[in-house]
């Protein structure tokens, strides 16, 4: 009852905000935007190689390929369905194919899409394209990304039509959304901070759009003001806070973060999972200096110094609780853990001896929600063709919802001092419905 009442209330709020948004859009009379004249696809020689190379790094930092590439598809040809609370938005082809891609787009048209969320034809784009972030990018960086994309091989491939519920399938509504949530203007450096920090802040805010997943979103899908990087979700996966609220038992520093972002793994925290894994594959390709500045900036937002849990013994290696000292008497959970998890996550397992951290150090195990742990158990970390990286088998086929819940509850009790999770089985059901994402 409480849940359905809450959903009803949310519906009223959504309707009220939609009406407000429409009114704002109409009042501003900005829903209509002109189309930009088509151009002949530019010649590769018209772009400087250095600009194309910088554009490649920026496209990787911005992770364009993650959304604009379908499963097993060719890079940047679009077709991946991005789930949103309002339906599925299909990423478009951003290769320079004239018919189905951006071959006819001038730099002005591309810049308008990045800054204002308007395509060449004048239609509003959905903010699942993170133009509220890209709008902060410099003209030079936008031009470099344009140079990179326009020098890819053109591929003819049309994205499927979006599957959005009414009224969200009506694009002019986005004019109202933009009035409410798009804050135009370039990114401004903080003069009290050094150049490295500022470059990292710029990349995080204007290019890498970390907040698109790591910031909570409001009912209309916009990032909540004042909650930057306070934790959110990505295709159903738990996206932990990247600021003071980080539940990581060992605090992050710039070096650990840089290692994690480049390799998908850090010995003090564990492996990148779900939609974060492809992000790390992209970041493995960009200049060290860029990843390092991102790490410097994000680490500066995180809690500093180790934060050991009260009342637990310390180990020399981590300064944290020794999980072997905790015991939990649930024979069913113990049988599942020993039989399914222990071969890798046991105290003496080869993987643990080879340097993988104890589950006690896992952010997901210490998070306020069970969703991260549940997603890991169900979906694991799949092999990704062409990419080295951490692997974990998926257990969705062999564990029932109840068994996943028993196991997750056990992991929380054994490896974290934080309070038990509530409604774990409902979380398992939701995670199973939503699938593994990437």
């Amino acid at each position, binding site marked *: 009852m409480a849940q359905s009442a809450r959903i009803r209330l949310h519906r009223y709020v959504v309707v009220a905000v939609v009406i407000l948004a429409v009114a704002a859009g109409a009042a501003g009379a900005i829903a209509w935007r002109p189309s930009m004249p088509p151009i002949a696809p530019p010649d590769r020689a018209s772009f400087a190689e250095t600009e194309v190379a910088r554009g490649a790094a920026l496209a990787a930092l911005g992770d364009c390929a993650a959304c604009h590439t379908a499963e097993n598809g060719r890079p940047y040809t679009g077709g991946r369905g991005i789930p949103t609370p309002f339906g599925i938005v299909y990423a478009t082809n951003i290769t320079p194919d004239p018919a189905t891609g951006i071959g006819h787009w001038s730099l002005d048209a591309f810049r308008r899409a990045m800054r204002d969320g308007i395509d060449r034809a004048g239609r509003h784009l959905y903010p699942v394209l993170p133009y509220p972030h890209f709008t902060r990018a410099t003209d030079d960086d936008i031009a470099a990304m344009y140079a990179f994309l326009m020098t890819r091989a053109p591929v003819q491939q049309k994205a499927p039509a979006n599957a959005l519920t009414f009224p969200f399938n009506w694009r002019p509504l986005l004019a109202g959304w933009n009035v409410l949530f798009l804050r135009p203007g370039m990114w401004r450096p903080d003069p009290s901070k050094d150049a490295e920090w500022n470059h990292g802040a710029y990349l995080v805010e204007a290019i890498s759009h970390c907040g698109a997943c790591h910031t909570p979103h409001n009912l209309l899908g916009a990032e909540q003001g004042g909650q930057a990087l306070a934790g959110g979700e990505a295709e159903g996966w738990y996206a932990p806070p990247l600021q003071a609220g980080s539940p990581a038992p060992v605090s992050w520093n710039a070096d650990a973060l840089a290692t994690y972002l480049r390799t998908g793994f850090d010995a003090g925290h564990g492996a990148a999972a779900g939609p974060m894994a492809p992000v790390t594959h992209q970041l493995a390709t960009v200049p060290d200096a860029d990843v390092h500045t991102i790490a410097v900036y994000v680490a500066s937002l995180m809690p500093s110094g180790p934060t050991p849990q009260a009342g637990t013994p310390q180990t020399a290696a981590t300064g944290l609780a020794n999980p072997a000292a905790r015991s939990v008497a649930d024979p069913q959970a113990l049988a599942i853990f020993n039989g399914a998890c222990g*071969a890798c996550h046991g105290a003496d397992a080869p993987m643990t001896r080879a340097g993988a951290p104890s589950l006690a150090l896992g952010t997901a195990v210490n998070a306020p929600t069970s969703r991260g742990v549940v997603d890991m158990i169900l979906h694991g970390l799949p092999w990704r063709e062409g990419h080295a990286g951490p692997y974990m088998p998926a257990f969705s086929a062999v564990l029932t919802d109840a068994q996943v819940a028993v196991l997750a509850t056990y992991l929380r009790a054994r490896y974290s001092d934080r309070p038990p999770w509530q409604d774990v089985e409902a979380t398992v059901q939701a995670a199973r419905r939503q699938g593994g994402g990437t």
Partner: protein
Amino acid sequence: MIKLTVNGQEHAVDAEPDTPLLYVLRNDLGLNGAKFGCGLGQCGACTVIVDGAAVFSCLTPIALLPGRQVTTIEGLGTEDAPGPVQRAFMTEQAAQCGYCIAGMVMRAQALLAHTPDPSEQEIRDGLNPNLCRCGTHMRILAAVRRAASSLRAAAPTKAAAQ
């Protein structure tokens, strides 16, 4: 004692509840088709089917299994009367050393049960969890394609309905 149903037969097994199914199959039930490869769910040599889904039996404690149906490669056919997927693997000479093959067959069996007419990509994605160190992948893929068409030919109405 824990009760298991394997290839339609009930067994009462005297083993700890955290014992991996693979050990029980090989050591207690004499079903040696599933192989121990890595013991970490990385290679797929131990793959069996539980309630229609391919799983790593090396990471499946028997505590999970009461009330569920386990199928091993011994349940698909015999030497004299191999099942369609087994026959396809034999016809295509898919085995080199053969250590991975029981797992490959079980993975393919599960795939074809819910995807009777798989695309090349679906076959590759479906078999992705299983490794072969000899390198007979092209023959394994051919065997799965052959198995798919022979299964469809045997059940034309079902395939047409898909």
